C-alpha cells in the first residue's frame, strides 16, 4: 500500500507538470495577449506603448523563461499579479474558492442524496409506474441545459414570489448562505443527480441478478438488507467513480450556473480571465482545478479499497 501511495503521488506530480506545460503553452497560442486587449478596449493601437506594456509584464521574454519564472514563483507560493486588477493573484483567487466549493458541495450533496436512493428505488421496482416516472425525470435532468433550467427558476421566483435568488452581496449567516446557494445547487445538482440515479439503477440491476443476492434472499435476508447491505455496496463502485468525476467537474465547470445566478465563483472568474488573457490568473486557477481533480481521483481510487475489500493495492 505504501509503495502504491508513493507511486501514485509521483504520478500525480507528473500529471500536474504535464498540465502546467499544456496550459502555459495553449494560453500563449491563443491570439492576442493582455496588451492587445488593453489597447483594443480603448479602440486604439499604439505599437510603442503596447511593446512597453509587454516588456513591463515580461511578455517579451522567451516562453521557456516565462514558464520557469512562473513555476519557480509557484514553488515559493508567489502566484504573481493579476494583469487586470493589478492585485496579487492569490488575493483574487482565494476568496472565490470557498464560493465555488460551497456551490459544488451542495450540488454534489443534492446529487448523492437524491440520485443514489432514487436509483436504488428505480432498480428494485423495475418496470413499475414509479420506475417509469423516475426514468423520465432523470432523462429530463440529463437533457435540460443548465442555463435554461437556471433561468426558468429565476423567472418563476420573480413571477410568483417577486424575489430573485441571485448573488449580489456576500450572504451573512448560515441560513442566508444556504438559501442563496441551495437554488443554484439544485439547478446543477439536478443534472448530476439524474446521472447518478441512472448509473445507480443500471448498476443495481446488474448486481441484483447475481447469484449471491439470490443466496442472501434464500437465507431469509430482508429486502432492505439485500438491497442496501448486499447489493448497493457492490453496485456503488461505478457510482463513486462518477461522483468523483462530477466533483472534479463542479470545481471548474460551473460557468453557466455561476453566470445565470451571478455567483462570483472560480469558473466565471476563469472565463473572464481567459477573455482578458490574464495569464497569472488563468494559469494558477487551472492548476488549482487540476490539483483538485487529480486529488479527487486519487481519493476515489483509495475509496475502492474501502468499499470492496477484494481490491488490494500493492
Amino acid at each position, binding site marked *: 500500500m505504501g509503495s502504491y501511495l508513493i507511486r501514485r503521488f509521483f504520478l500525480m506530480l507528473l500529471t500536474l507538470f504535464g498540465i502546467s506545460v499544456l496550459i502555459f503553452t495553449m494560453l500563449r497560442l491563443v491570439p492576442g495577449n493582455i496588451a*492587445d486587449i488593453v489597447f483594443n478596449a*480603448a479602440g486604439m493601437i499604439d505599437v510603442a506603448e503596447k511593446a512597453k*506594456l509587454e516588456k513591463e509584464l515580461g511578455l517579451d521574454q522567451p516562453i521557456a523563461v516565462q514558464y520557469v519564472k512562473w513555476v519557480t514563483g509557484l514553488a515559493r507560493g508567489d502566484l504573481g499579479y493579476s494583469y*487586470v486588477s493589478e492585485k496579487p493573484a492569490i488575493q483574487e483567487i482565494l476568496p472565490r474558492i470557498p464560493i465555488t466549493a460551497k456551490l459544488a458541495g451542495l450540488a454534489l450533496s443534492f446529487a448523492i442524496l437524491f440520485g443514489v436512493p432514487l436509483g436504488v428505488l428505480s432498480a428494485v421496482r423495475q418496470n413499475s409506474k414509479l420506475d417509469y416516472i423516475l426514468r423520465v425525470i432523470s432523462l429530463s435532468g440529463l437533457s435540460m441545459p443548465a442555463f435554461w433550467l437556471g433561468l426558468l427558476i429565476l423567472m418563476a421566483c*420573480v413571477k410568483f414570489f417577486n*424575489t430573485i435568488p441571485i448573488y*449580489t452581496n456576500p450572504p451573512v449567516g448560515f441560513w442566508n448562505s444556504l438559501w442563496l446557494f441551495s437554488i443554484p445547487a439544485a439547478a446543477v445538482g439536478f443534472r448530476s443527480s439524474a446521472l447518478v440515479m441512472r448509473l445507480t439503477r443500471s448498476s443495481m440491476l446488474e448486481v441484483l441478478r447475481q447469484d449471491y443476492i439470490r443466496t442472501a434472499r434464500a437465507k431469509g435476508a430482508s429486502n432492505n438488507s439485500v438491497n442496501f447491505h448486499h447489493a448497493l455496496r457492490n453496485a456503488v463502485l461505478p457510482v463513486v467513480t462518477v461522483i468523483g468525476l462530477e466533483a472534479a467537474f463542479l470545481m471548474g465547470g460551473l460557468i453557466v450556473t455561476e453566470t445565470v445566478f451571478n455567483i*462570483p465563483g472560480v469558473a466565471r472568474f476563469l472565463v473572464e480571465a481567459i477573455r482578458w488573457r490574464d495569464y497569472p490568473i488563468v494559469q494558477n486557477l487551472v492548476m488549482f482545478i487540476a490539483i483538485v481533480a487529480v486529488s479527487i481521483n486519487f481519493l476515489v481510487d483509495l475509496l475502492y479499497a474501502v468499499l470492496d475489500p477484494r481490491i488490494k493495492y500493492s
Partner: protein
Amino acid sequence: MGARISALAIAILACLTISNVQAAEPKHGGILHIYHRETPPSLSIHEEATFSVNAPAMALFNNLVLYDQHKPQNSMGTIVPELADSWAWSSDNLSLTFKLHQGVKWHDGQPFTSKDVKCTFDLLQGKGEDKFRKNPRKDLFNNISDVTTNGDFEVTLHLNRPQPSILAMLASGYTPMYSCHVPSAQMRTHPIGTGPFKFVEFKQNELIKLEKNPDYWKKGLPYLDGIEYTIISNRATAVLAFVAGKVDMTFPTELTSALIKDIKTQDPTAVCEIAPINVSTNLIVNREKPPFDNLELRKAMALALDRKAMIDIIFQGQGDIGGTMLPPPEGVWGMPPDMLKTIPGYGDVKKDREQAREIMTKLGYSADKPLKIKVSTRNIATYRDPAVVLIDQLKSIYIDAELDPVESSQWFAKVARNDYSVGLNLTGNGIDDPDQAFYENYACGSERNYTHYCNKELEALFDKQSVETDVQKRKTMVWEIDKKLQEDVARPILMHARSGMCWKPFVKNMTVMNNSAYNGYRYEDVWLDK
C-alpha cells in the same frame, strides 16, 4: 354656501399642492443599486474608452466645466461651471483662463489647486514623468500648447489656434481632473477624486462600491449615501433582478426597445427612456486594396445600403439615419433631413441600387459573376448582427460577401494593419462635437482613421469650422463637410443606435443624455424617494 365650498376646495387644493411640493423635496440617504453589464477594464476614465468605466467612475470626479446634468442635449449652451467658477477667453481666442473654486479637497484630504489641473493636462499630453498606460484621447488636446498657473486658483490653457470646442471637450465625462499626488497606476484600481462619491471597493465580476463624500465641496450634496454597482454580466438575469427590485436601475444604454417592452409588462411602474447614444455603425472599406481602390466600386457599395431596413431589423426601428454627426433633433450638428436626402445612397433605395448595379456591370460584375469578398467585423453581437444584414444588402449589387468574424482582441490590430477589405465598425462619440468626430475619424494620419481617407482640402475645412465662434455659421460648414465625407464614401454611416434604460419610480432626478452616452453620470443630486 357656495363661497364656503369654494374656500374648502381652495384649502384642499392648497394642502395637496403643499404635500406635492414636500414630496418633491429631495431626501438625503439611501444607497442607489445599479447593475453593471461587465467588469470594467479599470476605473481610470482617462485611460479607457467605454461607458462601462464612465458610468461608475464619473461620480468620483469633477471637471473644470461640465454639461448640465439635467439637460438631455449636450451643447455649448448647456456647459456649466464645476471646479472652475468661471472662465474667460482672451481677445485673440488663443487662451482660456479658469478661476478655480476654493476649498475643494481630494478624497484623501489634500487640497485641489491649479497644479492639479496642469498635472492632468501633462498626463493627457504625455508631458509629465508619470504616464498613462494608454491614452486614447491624447489627440483631442493637441491644440493646447501650454498650461500655465497663476497662483493656486487660476489656470490658463494656451492654444495653438482658436478652438471654441475645447470647452465642449472639457465638459465631457471623459475629462475629469486628476491629482498630482496620486500616481496614474493607482487611479486604475483605487481612484481618488474630488467628486460627490468616494471609492470604496472594486471587485472583479462582483461589485463597485462608492460612498458619499461627506466633505464634498458642493454643500448639501450628494443626496445619496452611496452607489453600488452589482456586476451582472448575463443580461437576462440583470433584467430579472431589476424587475424583482434587487437593483433600482438598469445599466445605462443597455436595453433594447424589446427588452424595455418586456420590463414594462412585468413592472408597469418602471420609468424607461430610449435615446440616441451617439454611436454610429459604419462601413469601412480598405481603399488601398484592389478592387476597392476604385472609387466607383466604393460608391456602388454605398448606394446598395438600405439604412431603414437595417434599423428595423437590428433595432426594431429605434435608430436614426444620418451622416457622421448625430442627426437632429437630438444631435446638435447633424445635417437636416432635406440635405441628407440629396446625398447618393440616402434617397430611394430601389433607384440607388439600380444605379449601383449599373456601376457594377460596367466594372465587369454580374449576377453570374459576382464580386466575392469578406466582411470582417468583431465577433460580438452588436457588430456581427448589422454585418449579416449588410452582407444581405450587398448581394443586391452582385457582391457575394462572406462574414469574417474577428476575435475581439484582434479587431483594432487587424484594422490598423490594413489587413481587411471590407469591414463593419462601431464608432462611439464622447461628445457631440465636430472637432472630435472629424479629427479623430477622418484626419490624415489619425490613429482612428481606419480607412486612411485623406483629403487635405477637407482637412483645411476641418480647421476652418474649428476656429469659427459663430455656432450657426459653424453648423453650415459642418453640414457641408459631413455631406462631402458621405459623398466621398470616406466611411459610410449605416445608422445611429438608440438604446435605453429603466429605473424604479422612487429614483428621482435622473436625466438621460440624448446625444452622448458618456457624460451624464455625476449623480450628485439624484435622490431616493423612499
